């Protein structure tokens, strides 16, 4: 086990974490401000990936296709918010779970009708090779792009939330919704916009991860739960928490999968290690969440004071 391998896995973890952050950012604000459980968030990620794949195919350019998919998904998100989700804010969590679960079924089938079960989304040829990062260490160029874009979007989002007037209103809404309403903030409009931004971020993640994972119906369902884990670990409604939680979960998950089987190999027989290593690695993120909730029931960076 060399330092190159460790560095490589750290970068992989960071890359996965940043993508998780893009998903969790919208989710945590929806969750924090409106106290709304949106299970359909993963469907927007799927929709973004499918739109990107279709648009890349239509335009022949990866960059153009992805850039078009983001506003398109944002628009679809706002449409869903205005037509369905808006009426659910005042309802209990159970109704929200049922309605957004129904939305998952509807969106999955709608995508299947329009595009079929999966679509190819090839990596841009210019980025499919490796890059020499350090002497003796090469890293896939495309993954570097993901890290770069992910970090840039995370930075922009941070500026938006922490430094602009809109961001101030969002934070006000997250920390005390009633008070923000009483001060005259138009939460309804703000929230529709916010939902659009969240959907756009989903599309970025879906489009960028598309070439690495597969663009297929149901792709949103597993990553959605990880995004919820990130949100809960970070503290519901906190962007800072979502970033910390996402990078933490990304690193723990990736490092665990890479090194836990090796680590177990040092202590147990190979047969036990090869069975237990991957098994424990796949549940590390969830164990982390259980531990965080047990010791810090409101997450690492609670949004409400």
């Amino acid at each position, binding site marked *: 086990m060399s330092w190159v391998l460790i560095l490589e896995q750290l970068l992989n973890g960071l890359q996965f974490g940043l993508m998780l952050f893009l998903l969790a950012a919208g989710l945590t604000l929806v969750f924090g401000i409106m106290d709304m459980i949106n299970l359909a968030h993963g469907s927007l990620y799927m929709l973004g990936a499918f739109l990107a794949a279709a648009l890349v195919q239509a335009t022949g350019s990866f960059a153009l296709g992805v850039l078009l998919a983001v506003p398109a998904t944002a628009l679809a998100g706002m449409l869903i918010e205005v037509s369905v989700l808006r009426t659910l804010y005042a309802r209990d969590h159970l*109704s929200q*779970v049922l309605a957004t679960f129904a939305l998952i079924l509807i969106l999955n089938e709608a995508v299947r009708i329009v595009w079929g079960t999966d679509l190819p989304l090839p990596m841009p040829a210019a980025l499919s090779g490796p890059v020499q990062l350090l002497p003796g260490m090469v890293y896939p160029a495309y993954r570097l792009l993901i890290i770069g874009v992910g970090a840039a979007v995370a930075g922009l989002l941070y500026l938006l939330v922490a430094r602009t007037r809109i961001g101030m209103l969002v934070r006000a809404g997250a920390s005390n919704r009633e008070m923000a309403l009483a001060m005259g903030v138009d939460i309804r409009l703000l929230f529709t916009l916010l939902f659009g931004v969240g959907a756009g971020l989903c599309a970025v993640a879906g489009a960028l991860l598309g070439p690495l994972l597969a663009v297929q119906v149901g792709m949103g369902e597993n990553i959605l739960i990880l995004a919820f884990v990130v949100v809960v670990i970070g503290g519901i409604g906190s962007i800072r928490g979502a970033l910390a939680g996402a990078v933490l979960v990304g690193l723990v998950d990736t490092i665990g999968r890479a090194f836990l089987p090796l680590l177990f190999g040092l202590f147990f027989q190979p047969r036990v290690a090869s069975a237990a290593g991957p098994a424990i690695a796949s549940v590390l993120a969830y*164990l982390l969440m*259980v531990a965080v909730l047990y010791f810090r029931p409101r997450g690492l960076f609670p949004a409400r004071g």
Partner: protein
Amino acid sequence: MQRYAPLAVLVLALAFPLAVQEPYYLSFASRIFVYALAATSLNLVLGYGGMISFGHAAFVGTGAYVSSIFLAEGVASAWIGWPAAVAASALAALVIGAVSLRTRGVYFIMITLAFAQIVFFLVNSMKAYGGDEGLSLPARASTGLPVDLGSDVVFYYVALAALAGAVYGLHRLADSRFGRVIEAIRENEARAEAIGFPVYRYKLACFVVAGAVGGLAGVLLASHGKYVNPNVLHWTQSGTLMVMVILGGVGRLWGGTVGAAAFLGLEDLIANHRIDWLAAWLPDYQQHASLGVGAVLLAIVLFAPQGIAGAFARRPRA
């Protein structure tokens, strides 16, 4: 008249295999009973206890897998495999509940979900028992009695008996001291605590009972299809069970049963019964049954928040 309605339903259910010989419908009815059992056990936690558990598939799946593993290892007797599976589910519920019940509100929803994911991934990586491909069973468990579970008619009556027992048990439980306390905790936990009830222990007991019954549903589910795969533990399975409970009526005695029958019936109706005018418009609409299911669910939550039972019942929920 309302007192005799459950008896009438039971008589109809008992007579069903005599009237309908078609194996498909017999199997379909058994499937409804099994899901109704699972949904009824979830309703105990969700409706009566007010605990929004998003991880009930963990208990159903534990029951399904433990009973299947006994069969795969050559222990064919239902008298060993089934109680062991139910006990394993109860134990899982005890551990998961003991940790989860320290949290409140959305955190409880999320932590039960996380635990269910843990069980899902652990089962997924059990290569010895099929891993993500699942486990096919050679036959159903044997009873040692002149009752052959392998017969679909016998299995139908076993599933019916389990469901009837669960609904009757829930009915008795709701009227018992335990049920009253659980409902008091749901309505006002702080007050129940102040009166002096050990709230945490009551909730945990409720959670464990529901987990055990959910495990029994899992045993029957695996036994019904003679096959089990990790998808019985997938979070969407927990979601489906919740949907059934909400559909049928949260905190209503028949909520789970009505919800399971409505959900599976709707799915079957769209997938297996061609509606000509719809087919003229959308030729392959039957391959997209879940679109219809989703649309109906959405309509119910938007326009009939009390569920199907709530739309007809005069009595408020338990």
